């Protein structure tokens, strides 16, 4: 009887474990969501820029060859890391025209992680560098 109870408890636990959704235990992964070894480039007008952890977000209106505007969501690496490189909340402003190089989303959506933002006058803001293995600082 005791063994039967124990087996029933074990079986119940197994069924419960199988039916419960997997634990969501992480802030999102760069490697899983973005293509690390390929850069794409978009140019457009800044709609919005927020600079808060875990990621800054740049919303960019990009005009296609057909004249239609597509909106891109472009995330930065952590603002804490970028502050130490000189970025601030006002580094990018609504209405700015910028060129952004970054790592494309694996799902092909208009979503990317920024490597570099370049202004028409040549000023640059550097985000996540392409190859961490050749970088000596923090990234």
């Amino acid at each position, binding site marked *: 009887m005791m063994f039967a109870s124990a087996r029933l408890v074990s079986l119940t636990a197994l069924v419960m474990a199988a039916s419960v959704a997997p634990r969501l*235990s*992480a802030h*999102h992964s760069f*490697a899983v969501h973005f293509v690390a070894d390929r850069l794409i480039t978009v140019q457009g007008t800044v709609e919005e820029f927020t600079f808060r952890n875990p990621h800054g977000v740049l919303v960019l209106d990009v005009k296609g060859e057909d004249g239609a505007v597509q909106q891109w969501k472009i995330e930065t*690496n952590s603002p804490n890391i970028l502050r130490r490189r000189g970025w601030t909340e006002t580094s990018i402003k609504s209405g700015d025209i910028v060129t952004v190089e970054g790592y494309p989303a694996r799902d092909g959506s208009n979503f990317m992680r920024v490597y570099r933002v370049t202004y028409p006058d040549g000023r640059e803001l550097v985000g996540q560098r392409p190859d961490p293995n050749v970088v000596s600082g*923090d990234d």
Partner: protein
Amino acid sequence: MRHRISFAVVMFAACSAAAEAQPDLEGFWTPRIERARSGQALIDELPDGVVLINDTGAGELAAGDFAGLKLTPAAIEEVRRYDFGEELKRENTCNAPTSAFLMQAPFPMEVYASDELIVFKMEYFDLVRVVFLDGRPHPPDTAPHSKVGHSVGHWEGDALVVDTTHLTSGTFMNNGFNHSESLHMTERFRLSPDGSVLWLVQTYEDAAVFDGVAARYMAWTRRPGEYVYPYDCDPSYGE
């Protein structure tokens, strides 16, 4: 009376000397991203068969890459059912890792040390780890678990050895593979001879999700005068 004072002075001097003999870990430390591991000697000390997880810093392992670890059937099933899309949602944006994935992140830390405590103030998610050096044991298994767990430590020569239990389940590689609440982590911290670099090798055992022993290597550079920024995670990033 004079003998008593003399004895106290001698004991104080002896304790001070012992304390001074321990490496000074205090300060601000920023992660090093190294082409060649400056602390390779710590890795060389690992027993044969330990699986080294090479994902320290900004680099992360892709989905399905578990560094060669043999996952248990339960872990394989959990990984199979993991929904990465959920990670981008508002409610999961500020889901901090546990100490088993915290130290390898590319963020700095401040370290405070005394004879009884070592405190790691981590920039990543504003987490704070406290390591007790006063000889206390871990609490019973039934005690509450947390992101930073319960850590006790001691010095073995010039190495600080930290033993951590009571972690909540959390990501182990940030690719859908979680460690369990039973994970047992051991850490060996050591300073470079000139005191400018701090090395760490963590080893992990968690029979509920993988076989054998895994390890990670980390290194930091001391930067006097700098300090940890607030992280203040903002969930509005999520969708």
